[in-house]
């Protein structure tokens, strides 16, 4: 969909390289591309402008202009500035100084607060805490029931008083309840609200005053547009935020809102929400988000997610195979199985530069369709070990045998082999070290 920034910059810098030296106009041209990428990623207009200004100041220093590798230098500056703006350390939750420590989740309607509350409870429990979920959304129909269902799913208790009590009172009483029952952290789910709704914002102020939380986390959707800035600013000014959770990062939104929010409030990004299933929140790493905002893929997260599911040894084996270009049909089947387990092929593929277009192709979509997947599996399982290792030997008669054995058609077998060849090609490229580690590595 969006032409990758990498491609565009490569174009700009290729012209420059042929000239040998970098002039200020060259940098302007490159930064125009960066600016466009930021805007496409929904980074706020003003934030993008300030950002480009800062990069330009550094990039037009003599040191850069006269360096032998000016293109890399410029990109390194972009990367460094981006990572610096996004913040240094992956965030943590502060539960010190109080038992139970109240943690409030606030945000716009539909941002993902309730799901995040349950995920946070799970995350904190893994850290040895005893979280209590508190249902303070008394407005949206069935919001209390939603939190209760999620609580049941993860085996966490939910404190609720229905929808008639005031959220301020519920929050206050939940702290007493938590203290009496030995909970260490109260996670307060509040109703979604617009930052321009004074009455509703005032309610948050009152809840905060009543329970003195150790954390007030803004839950924001990664797809948020230009207004992310004023949303975060208003919540910060009125309620005082201590951190940000960015949700729906499993989609393909580039998440520029995070940069905007961080730039205008200085509030640290703490966690990412990566799916509808209630699983632990993901810690957030500025360098990965930086490449995603620039549209350069997020290889590190991908590698990590894959590793979580593979055992370490297997991951290393695959890595070696990738480097040597020995990716076989067995591995292909293994990959499909892994990806199925991870939920969505495209969310994984979107993390790899260049692959996202591929996932939009119908063949790939089809391969993951439940029925289709079974057929692919059957076809590969109908092959001999030799054939799986070395599909080149699959001539017409072998293909017919496989089709018969798997109850499919030769056409389908051909299709599978084509798909596999494409995938193999890509894997080779990735294996050859085309994995971008930050931006600096890209231009070499």
């Amino acid at each position, binding site marked *: *969909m969006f032409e990758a920034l990498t491609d565009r910059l490569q174009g700009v810098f290729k012209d420059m390289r042929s000239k040998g030296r970098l002039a200020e106009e060259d940098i302007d041209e490159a930064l125009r591309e960066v600016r*466009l990428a930021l*805007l*496409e*990623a*929904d980074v*706020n*207009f003003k934030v993008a402008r300030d950002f480009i200004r800062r990069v330009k100041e550094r990039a037009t220093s003599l040191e850069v202009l006269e360096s032998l590798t000016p293109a890399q230098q410029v990109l390194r500056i972009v990367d460094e500035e981006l990572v610096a703006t996004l913040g240094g350390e992956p965030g943590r939750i502060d539960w010190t100084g109080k038992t139970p420590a109240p943690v409030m989740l606030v945000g*716009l*309607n*539909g*941002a*993902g607060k*309730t799901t995040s509350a349950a995920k946070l409870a799970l995350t904190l429990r893994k850290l040895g805490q005893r979280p209590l979920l508190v249902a303070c959304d008394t*407005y*949206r*129909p*069935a*919001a209390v*029931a*939603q*939190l*209760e*269902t*999620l609580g049941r*799913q993860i085996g966490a208790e939910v404190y609720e008083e229905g929808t008639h009590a005031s959220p301020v009172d519920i929050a206050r009483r939940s702290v007493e309840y938590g203290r009496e029952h030995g909970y260490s952290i109260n996670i307060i789910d509040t109703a979604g609200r*617009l*930052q*321009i709704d004074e009455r509703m914002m005032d309610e948050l102020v009152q809840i905060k005053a009543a329970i003195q939380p150790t954390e007030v986390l803004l839950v924001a*959707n*990664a*797809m*948020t*547009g*230009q*207004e*992310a800035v*004023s*949303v975060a600013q208003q919540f910060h000014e009125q309620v005082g935020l201590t951190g940000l959770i960015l949700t*729906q990062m*499993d*989609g*393909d*939104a*580039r998440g*520029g*809102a995070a940069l905007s929010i961080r730039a205008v409030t200085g509030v640290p990004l703490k966690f990412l929400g990566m799916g*509808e299933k209630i699983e632990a929140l993901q810690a957030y790493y500025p360098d990965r988000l930086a490449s995603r905002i620039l549209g350069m893929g997020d290889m590190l997260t991908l590698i990590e997610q894959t590793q979580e599911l593979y055992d370490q040894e297997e991951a290393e084996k695959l890595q070696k195979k990738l480097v040597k270009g020995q990716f076989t049909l067995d591995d292909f089947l293994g990959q499909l199985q892994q990806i199925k387990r991870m*939920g*969505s*092929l*495209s*969310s994984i593929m*979107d993390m790899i530069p260049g692959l996202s277009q591929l*996932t939009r192709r119908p063949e790939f*979509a089809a391969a*993951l*369709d*439940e029925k289709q997947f079974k057929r692919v599996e059957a076809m590969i399982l109908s092959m001999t070990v030799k054939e799986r290792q070395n599909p080149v030997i699959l001539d017409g008669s072998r293909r017919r045998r496989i089709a018969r054995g798997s109850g499919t058609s030769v056409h389908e077998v051909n299709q599978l082999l084509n798909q596999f060849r494409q995938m193999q090609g890509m894997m080779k490229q990735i294996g050859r070290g085309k994995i971008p580690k930050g931006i600096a590595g890209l231009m070499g």
Partner: protein
Amino acid sequence: MVFNIFRKKEQPAGAGVAESLEKTRGGLFGAVRNMFQARRELDAAFWDELEERLIQADLGAHTTADLVDTLRETHDKRRFDSPEQAEAALRQEMMRLLGGGTVGLNLPLPLAVILVVGVNGVGKTTSIAKLAKFLAQSGRKPLLVAGDTFRAAAIDQLKVWGERVAVPVVAQGPGSDPSAVVFDGIKAARARGADVLIVDTAGRLHTKINLMEELKKVQRIVQRQIPDAPHETLLVLDAVTGQNALVQAKSFTQAVGVTGLVLAKLDSSSKGGVVFSIAQELSLPIKFVGTGERVDDFAPFDAGEFAGALFAE
């Protein structure tokens, strides 16, 4: 017979609509207007500021550049005598992007089916309740189908709304097959003489292939029962969403053939400017706007009215 609800004389006026548009134009287009009025000259700084305003309204870099370029070219050719002329030209161009006019719903008798889709949390279920009331008030007999069997308490949420707007809801238990629920819904609609079936679906990211396939299956089931159904497949967008809304519109259109948009949360401080790109690239009509959490915060979208209001005093 095609029943165009918008042609009905008596239209229940969504209470919050005028108010929200007020906010929207106060926020952005009011500013654009002030810009036009405050300047005597359309210099480089003017065009830059216009660009900034449009981008901040989420029109996106491309659509903004197109708009500003078009306007600039017109200016170069025939010189706007006044900022008002430039403003009128911009408004006209934006109207052109939106396609102009009001596009009604195609809801033939005896039974029409509306499938409501979108990513998580955009306002699908709320919009369904609003739409149900809207249709009931225009003399239709809606029936709601709780097709979101996945999200915790989604079924309860729709039931609560059904009670509030006095429209019956067909539901099965959590985790049941959405297609089966829809199948039941169609049977129930026929048995009870309902003439519009509105299907709530679970929020899903357009990138999740298996979930998009599930949606296609729901569509196939509907088709098998009623060949030309679903008569409307409405994609709900959250006005707060930025450029990703265009990707959403493309993906859902590709998967299930979206027939129109519902732009929810227009009462927020966001302007939903990405709909200009969507309208331009996909020619999808915006059919309704949501302007608040209450059931009456809802109205048919009217491009002329919208663009007009954006530039009104």
